[in-house]
């Protein structure tokens, strides 16, 4: 069975792990998952009124 041929065994193993660690992991790490935006409620508009505090 060709999967049991010992010659490329270690090379394939190390190569697959190398590509996994060098390419896949950094690519998946760069994905960011921002929070879903929450809808603004009407009360928030009235709480912080703009006051001209320096006059």
């Amino acid at each position, binding site marked *: 069975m060709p999967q049991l041929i010992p010659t490329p065994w270690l090379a*394939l193993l190390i190569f697959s792990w190398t590509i996994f660690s060098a390419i*896949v992991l950094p690519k998946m790490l760069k994905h960011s998952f921002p929070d879903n935006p929450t809808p603004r409620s009407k009360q928030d508009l009235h709480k912080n009124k703009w006051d001209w505090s320096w006059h």
Partner: protein
Amino acid sequence: MTLSLFDQFLSPVVCWIPLVAIAIILPWILFPSPTTRWLNNRSLTSQNWFLSQATSQIFLPINPPGHKWALLLSSLLIFLTTMNTAGLLPYTFTPTSQLSINMGLAGALWMGVVILGMRTQPTHSLGHLLPEGAPALLTPILVIIETISLFIRPIALGVRLTANLTAGHLLIQLTSTATLAMLTIMPVTAIFTGILLFLLALLEAAVALIQAYVFVLLLSLYLQENV
């Protein structure tokens, strides 16, 4: 005849380039690195959504200390699904049909979770060798059986993926050879075999995704036991 059918799993080398290298490196062109922009294109957004859904699904039942494994297991899922599905295209080589690659992934990750469990909480990890509620008389036999099953896990993990993909590819090759051979002699049978081939291809697409998911799911279960 059987030996020549397995020849499709020989690691092919064309012009001194091992095709395994191309098969493992090239699919990542399909996965662009996310930009620092707030909005990305459709493919990136859908990949991002899929990654977040898959990660949350896998890590829901795992205790918070195990969530450090999120990057590793979700990247492994993407890696395996990509390798499996890319191998379904004609004239490609499936890296995950090789025992070396699957045993390398399975053995290393299984050993990682077991060593983690043994170092952080040895009593809890060893406690899994005796299931709760078992009769006291069966304790010695059960511990032996559970230890054997513990050590068979990496082999089962690797061989399961290899065997599923190898068997699928072999079946596709057999039915396609049969369809082609019968096309001139017995066309009606060839049409039925062609329908079988079509259904097999659908099955193989499903198996590709499912087997990758099962691999990662089992690893997450072993992690849940040990963390």
